[in-house]
């Protein structure tokens, strides 16, 4: 009983802190950082989606950002004036579907791509999946870049702009809103939207992790042959994990498109896939708290680098020798190697996992 109350208090404190976070950040660091926090949450959602694939099922997906792209373009096409260019007769003003209709469609579309890609490759060894997904990520980008002719579907490298903002109960999140006399700027509103989605994704991940399906995924990760000897249909289970991960990616993509109001192929490069993978590996594969930590760290890192590396080099050498962007990638690459060699379980120690299991026990024995 006491235990329950204590965790209840903790949860309440966490929720209040998170709710106040945009205002605190805004006051202390400036509005730019609220935007960074928004992006951090998008990345956390992506990383948690990838965590299902890599962390639970042990499948290496190196083109994960492609599913994000699919989701983003789903909303970009169906929530902007753009299609008026391709089909002026059918859609003179473009298509303006509600975000809430597109969101599930984006997830399903991305999931279908995942199934299409996974079906032929998942029966083979894991490395094939890695390389096929790597190729898939590139292909999606090539198509996005080139599908502007002869019919202008994606507007090529210029990308699609003027995407409708997300509306909640007919309130647009792209403008400052006054609620109870408090002004909520757009970035704050999106923060709460993303917070809600992140919470949802965390809950979904947790429930999956502690379910029959989650256990089966982890069994496959640990030893596929033993898993199939225990009666697990490994191919279907892997396909399920892969498609679920893709759906998470697609949904995050739609959120991204609504938030940015603009998408272009540039946002979906291989490096973004690597960055998301890095979050999962850094925090700890298969560990939700670890993945969140990884997401936060890596979303903040580029900003920290931008603010520290350039001035530091200016002071030392009088010029910028290494730009923060490539330094960031260099750090990611090194982190992947170092983590695998010295700390394959991630930054958060495995004790956490065991404590979780221990606390899982408590209610049952009571």
């Amino acid at each position, binding site marked *: 009983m006491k235990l329950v109350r204590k965790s209840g208090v903790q949860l309440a404190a966490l929720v209040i802190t998170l709710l106040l976070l945009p205002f605190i950040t805004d006051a202390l660091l400036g509005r730019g950082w609220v935007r960074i926090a928004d992006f951090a949450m998008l990345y956390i959602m992506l990383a948690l989606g990838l965590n299902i694939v890599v962390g639970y099922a042990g499948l290496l997906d190196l083109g994960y950002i492609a599913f994000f792209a699919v989701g983003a373009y789903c909303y970009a096409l169906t929530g902007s004036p753009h299609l008026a260019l391709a089909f002026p007769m059918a859609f003179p003003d473009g298509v303006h579907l509600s975000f809430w209709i597109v969101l599930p469609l984006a997830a399903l579309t991305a999931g279908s791509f995942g199934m299409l890609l996974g079906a032929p490759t998942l029966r083979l060894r894991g490395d094939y999946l890695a390389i096929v997904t790597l190729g898939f990520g*590139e292909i999606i980008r090539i198509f996005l870049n080139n599908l502007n002719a002869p019919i202008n579907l994606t507007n090529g490298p210029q990308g699609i702009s003027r995407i409708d903002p997300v509306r909640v109960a007919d309130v647009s999140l792209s403008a400052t809103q006054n609620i109870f006399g408090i002004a909520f700027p757009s970035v704050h509103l999106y923060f709460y939207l993303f917070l809600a989605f992140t919470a949802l994704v965390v809950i979904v991940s947790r429930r999956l992790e502690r379910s029959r399906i989650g256990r089966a995924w982890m069994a496959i990760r640990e030893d596929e042959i033993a898993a199939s000897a225990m009666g697990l249909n490994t191919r279907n289970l892997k396909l399920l994990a892969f498609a679920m991960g893709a759906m998470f990616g697609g949904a995050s993509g739609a959120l991204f498109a609504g938030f940015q109001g603009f998408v272009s192929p540039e946002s979906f490069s*291989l490096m973004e896939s690597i960055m998301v993978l890095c979050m999962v590996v850094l925090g700890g594969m298969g560990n939700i708290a670890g993945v969140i930590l990884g997401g936060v760290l890596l979303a903040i890192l580029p900003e920290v680098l931008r603010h520290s590396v350039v001035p530091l080099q200016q002071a030392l050498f009088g010029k910028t020798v290494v730009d923060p962007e490539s330094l960031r990638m260099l750090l990611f*690459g090194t982190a*992947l*190697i170092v*983590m*695998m*060699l010295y700390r394959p379980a991630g930054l958060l120690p495995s004790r956490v996992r065991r404590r979780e299991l221990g606390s899982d026990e408590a209610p049952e024995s009571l």
Partner: protein
Amino acid sequence: MEILLQQIINGLVQGSVYALVALGYTMVYGILGLINFAHGEVVMVGAMLALSALTALLGMGVPPVPALLFSVMVAMAGCMVLGYGIERIAYRPLRHASRLAPLITAIGVSIVLQNLAMMIWGREYHSFPQLISNDTHNFGGAIINDIQIVIFILALAIMAGLMVVVHRTRLGCAMRAVAENQHAAQLMGVDINRVISITFMLGSALAAIAGLMVSANYGLAHYYMGFLLGLKAFTAAVLGGIGNLRGAMLGGLLLGLIESLGAGYIGDLTGGFMGSNYQDVFAFFVLIAVLVFRPSGLLGERLAERA
């Protein structure tokens, strides 16, 4: 008809380069059962090293042919060290870890190499100096230049040389033994680590030459060139049957042909909907198609059942 011939020539030249790179993937896979993701970046480093050496030497007034030979040496030596280092740092400590771990370190190595290369050589394209006469020959209506002839013949010669090494020398025998059964080879007194190191170095040396060839063929080198090239060469290796040397050669040439013919005719095939800017897509569809219909590749035997 001329177009067809031209595309075939271009395809064979490009394919011979793919084959050289594919050999690197296939040798490592044959021995360790591991896809060396970083191999494409080794090709890039080879091209960059050769180009830097070449530019420096020409700047010092060294005549073109010795300069070229010396640059090849530099690139090969550099890549062999690199290949050795990659295996020692990123793969060897993980030989008994989960299968995910070496894949992730390999990705890490690729990223590091790519970004280091960008820091050293910059983001811009480097143009390859004109060395040997670039005379063109009319060949039944199609045009082939000296560089292409050299690339093709050299690639074939190197592949033939590799076959001799693998099938006729003690080292090759040790390599085949390790590929067949590591434990048994070890019991027979084969120094496995040494064989693996040498395999990586051999593959990297081939990659260096391939890198030079690509940049000579296109007249350009770029820090990002290794990624797509690596992906395609891997596809070539899978197409031929990964782990099989002859397969890698066949797969390379075939993929070169498919790409070049595909790019030449895709416009006609799709009624103008897709153009040659989709050239890079072919390799990927070939990869998927092979994995669906014949995962063991054209010349391969087993693949899926390797536990």
